[in-house]
C-alpha cells in the first residue's frame, strides 16, 4: 500500500537521521574532549599539559588524572556545555588551520580561558568552600571572608572562582615571579633543570 509506505518513511527516516546525528555528535564530542587530543593531536597545548602535571590540579581527590575538559568545559550535556564546546571548538579549529604559524600569546589566552571556566566544575570537587577538596584542612581567614562574600553571606562578589584563583593549573613564564605561585614555579623549574641535566 503506497500510503502506508509513505507514513513509514515519514516516521522512520527522520528518527534514524536523528539517532545517527546524536550518535556521531556524541562520538565527536567525546573524541575531541580527551587530554591527548588537546595536547598532542594538534600540539598547541603541550606546554599547558606539561605545566598541569606539576600543579595542585594534576590529580583529583580520588587520585585520578584531571583532564582539560574537567575545568575548561562546563559539566553535563546542557546548553552551557554545548555553547562552550561549540565556541572553543570552532575557535581552536580556526587557529589551528589559519593561525598555526603565529605564536600563542598566553596573556590573551588567559582571558578567554578564564571567561569559560564554569564555577560548577570547581564546585564538583570543592563542595565545601571552607575546607580543601579532600576536606582535611580549613581555608585561611582571608579565604573564609572571600568565600563568605562569594556565597552572599557577607556582602556580595560578582567575581567567580577564577576571578581570584588564578594560575592554579597553568603557569606561564610571566606569572612565575608572583609570590603566590612560588611553590608551583619551583616544581616546574626543578623539572626543567632535571630535563636540561639529562
Amino acid at each position, binding site marked *: 500500500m503506497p500510503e502506508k509506505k509513505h507514513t513509514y518513511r515519514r516516521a522512520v527516516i527522520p528518527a534514524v537521521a536523528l539517532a545517527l546525528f546524536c550518535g556521531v555528535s556524541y562520538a565527536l564530542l567525546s573524541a575531541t574532549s580527551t587530554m591527548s587530543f588537546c595536547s598532542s593531536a594538534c600540539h598547541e597545548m603541550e606546554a599547558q599539559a606539561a605545566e598541569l602535571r606539576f600543579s595542585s590540579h594534576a590529580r583529583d581527590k580520588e587520585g585520578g588524572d584531571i583532564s582539560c575538559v574537567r575545568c575548561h568545559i562546563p559539566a553535563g550535556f546542557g*546548553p*552551557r556545555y554545548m*555553547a*562552550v564546546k*561549540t*565556541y572553543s571548538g570552532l575557535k581552536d579549529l580556526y587557529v589551528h588551520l589559519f593561525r598555526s604559524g603565529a605564536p600563542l600569546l598566553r596573556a590573551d589566552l588567559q*582571558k578567554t580561558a578564564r*571567561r*569559560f571556566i564554569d564555577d560548577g566544575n570547581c564546585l564538583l570537587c570543592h563542595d565545601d568552600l571552607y575546607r580543601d577538596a579532600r576536606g582535611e584542612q580549613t581555608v585561611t581567614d*582571608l579565604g573564609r*571572608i*572571600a568565600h563568605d*562574600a562569594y556565597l552572599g553571606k*557577607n*556582602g*556580595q*562578589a*560578582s*567575581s*567567580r572562582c577564577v*576571578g*581570584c584563583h*588564578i594560575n592554579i593549573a597553568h603557569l606561564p613564564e*610571566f*606569572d612565575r*615571579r*608572583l*609570590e*603566590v605561585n612560588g611553590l608551583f614555579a619551583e616544581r616546574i623549574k626543578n623539572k626543567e633543570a632535571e630535563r636540561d641535566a639529562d
Partner: protein
Amino acid sequence: MRINMKTTGLALALICIGIGGFFLYLDKAFPEVRCEAAHLAAPEGYEDCLSCHVKVTAQVTQDWQESKHGVMLVKCVVCHGEPDGKGSIPFAARPDQNMICSRCHDPAMQRMTAKFGGGMDCNTCHPRHQNPMHADAYQKTAASGKTSF
C-alpha cells in the same frame, strides 16, 4: 531547480537568528567582565587595601609594587578612591583617565594629545599596573623626557 525566494529568505533569517542567539547566550552566560568590587557592601573598616589584595588579586598587587607607581608609593586610593566614598576621588575599579591620570600627568597628556590626537586610552600604551621597573614584563617604554613636538 527554481529557487524559492521566500524559503531561502526564511532559512537565511533563521540562520542569522541562530548565530546571533548563540553569541547573545554566550555573552549572557559567560560575561567577559566579572569583578566590579561589589563585595565592598560594608565599606567601613577597609582602610588597608593591600593586606587583602596581595592575596585575592595577587597579580595586580605585585604588578603595582614593581611598577613606577608602586616604587614611588602612589597608593591605591590615589587613583581608585576609597570604598566609603569619602575624599575627592570617586571609588572605581577603572578610574576615569581625564580625571585621575591628568591630576599628575596633565602636561604629558597634553603633549600626547597635541602629537597623536585625543580620545585615546592611556592604559593601552602605558598599562597602569604592568609597567614594572625591574621585571622582564616591561612592555612599553615611558617617555624619555625629550619628547619633541
